[in-house]
């Protein structure tokens, strides 16, 4: 055993030699302080004002000052590097602010409108301008549940089979169908509502009900679910398909026993994304489901409300403090649904990636 080995093992402690030194940290801090001071100076010295003005001023001065600092410290490439970093940070900030702001606003304003009756009463005996404790969202919640579940029932087989056609069967029409499905995901939701209205409600049934709403939602849901399902199916290595076929399985058996189980979690994610896509749709519901106030579990008879419809109505017909509270409470419930669904989707997809 050589002495050098012994001495290293004796003194070795875990270190982080790639971390910035104290001097570098101090430099970064000074840049930050300078940018802060410069932004305050900008606020008083120029036309910029308010919180937004200050934020813009801060980012501008931070970008310029850190560019100059890096240029002096390490030359042009480092300065360009810092420029890109600053701009990316600003972009992230711009992207996150509206989202956080929406969530905070909805929670703060909707919180006061929450009460137990919201989930046990409907609006058949109350108007939007009544005190908030009169009536509730039961009709809306039931309507949304019934219509989204029905839409899911229609969408699931159609979209999964479409995805299988595109990735497994790879039929002659795969290319045009892929193009159509992609184009369909951009269809404005009111078009889906108008389509059901003009092709089914007016000429055939003559009645607005939950089933019509579910059909309109399906049109919006199919492209989303089919595309996501196609993407996860494409991730399956071809080796697995060949392994199944080489064991003497038919293509159908291989797909059902090897391919689909391997992407189960991806398909669940696709479905949840599809639900999240349609749960907040207002326009098609407004056109074809009739928007009832009374709790209605029957999708083929009588009008049916929905959460977005509840929000829309409280906002449009109101004008009082009570109706405004109803609007925000409805938004909070809807937002909570969507956030819960996305969280479940994230959880499922990350959990399977780890395994």
């Amino acid at each position, binding site marked *: 055993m050589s002495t050098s080995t012994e001495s290293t093992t004796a003194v070795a402690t875990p270190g982080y030699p790639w971390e910035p030194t104290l001097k570098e940290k101090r430099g970064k801090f000074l840049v930050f302080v300078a940018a802060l001071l410069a932004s305050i100076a900008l606020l008083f010295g120029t036309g910029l004002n308010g919180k937004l003005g200050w934020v813009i001023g801060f980012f501008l001065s931070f970008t310029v000052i850190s560019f100059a600092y890096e240029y002096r410290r390490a030359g042009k490439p480092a300065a360009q590097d810092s420029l890109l970093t600053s701009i990316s940070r600003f972009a992230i900030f711009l992207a996150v602010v509206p989202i956080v702001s929406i969530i905070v606003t909805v929670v703060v304003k909707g919180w006061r409108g929450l009460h137990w009756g919201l989930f046990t009463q409907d609006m058949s005996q109350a108007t939007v301008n009544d005190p908030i404790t009169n009536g509730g969202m039961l009709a809306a919640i039931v309507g949304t549940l019934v219509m989204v579940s029905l839409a899911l029932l229609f969408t699931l087989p159609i979209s999964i089979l479409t995805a299988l056609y595109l990735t497994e069967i790879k039929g002659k029409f795969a290319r045009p169908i892929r193009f159509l499905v992609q184009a369909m995901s951009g269809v404005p939701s009111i078009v889906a509502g108008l389509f059901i209205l003009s092709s089914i409600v007016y000429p055939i049934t003559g009645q607005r009900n939950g089933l019509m709403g579910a059909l309109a939602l399906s049109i919006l849901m199919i492209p989303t679910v089919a595309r996501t399902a196609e993407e996860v199916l494409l991730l399956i290595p071809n080796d697995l398909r060949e*392994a*199944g076929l080489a*064991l*003497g399985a038919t293509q159908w*058996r291989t797909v059902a026993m090897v391919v689909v189980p391997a992407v189960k979690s991806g398909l669940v994610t696709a479905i949840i994304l599809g639900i999240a896509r349609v749960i907040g749709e207002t326009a098609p519901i407004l056109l074809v489901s009739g928007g009832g106030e009374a709790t209605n579990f029957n999708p083929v008879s009588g009008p049916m409300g929905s959460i977005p419809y509840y929000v829309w109505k409280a906002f449009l017909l109101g004008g009082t403090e009570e109706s405004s509270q109803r609007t925000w409470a409805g938004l909070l419930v809807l937002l909570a649904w969507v956030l819960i669904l996305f969280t479940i989707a994230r959880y499922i997809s990350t959990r399977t990636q780890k395994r």
Partner: protein
Amino acid sequence: MKSATTPQSLASVAASRETKKPGTMPIGSGLEARGVHAWFGKKHALKDVTLDFAAGTVTALIGPSGCGKSTFLRTLNRMHEFIPTAALAGEVLLGGKDIYAPGTDVTKIRLRIGMVFQKPNPFPSMTIGQNVLSGLKLAQLKVSHQDDLLEECLVRAGLWDEVKDRLGEHASALSGGQQQRLCIARSLAVRPEVLLMDEPCSALDPGSTFRIEQTISELSQSMTIVIVTHNMQQAARVSDYSAFMLSDGGPGELIEVAPTNELFSRPRDKRTEDYVTGRFG
């Protein structure tokens, strides 16, 4: 002189094996390729290969990359046709019947001619035990003593001792070499008469390679094996016959086929000699 010593050692390795004579092993069916050509689109990948695989023998397909070994192997159990632009000419006879004849049930053919792939590809959604028996479910076969079959296949693949206490675990928990032996066990469960192996050890360490070579030797008691390999030592160790394939930029062709010890000690063709002595390839 390295190139001078290599053929000697290969030949001596090969000579240490008894070459099985065709017809001496009355088991399973032999496989015969008759004038097989293969194309990918307009590219002619394989030209006029005629080659017999006698029942109960191990045949190694050797040759440099791109010479059409794997393509040829995949024509033998009709996996070639899964490539969208693929085309084919010629016949492949299993027990005297052309597997490409019209009206042939291709799934039955693949049941009789199993395949092990280059990369281990156990089914990720199944446990170790389910993987072994997956072929039965996939082909909808009924077997009365599933547990016995499970054990038998894992024993024959040389994996039983390592996994017998963890059959319920997912296959991804196994090492690469274990996964490959699991794939061998999986292909044995449907009792194929012929087993095609496409470079089964190329992704494995020497220890796992050794285990799989042992497995091949044991399996050759009861079935016909065709193995594609880049490793000439491996060909010398495991095979009764070796077939050398080569492409001179055009389609791959069969240059020479002979009992393995002959091919390595006294190659008839100059190109074979250049390859097995390591002068190119």
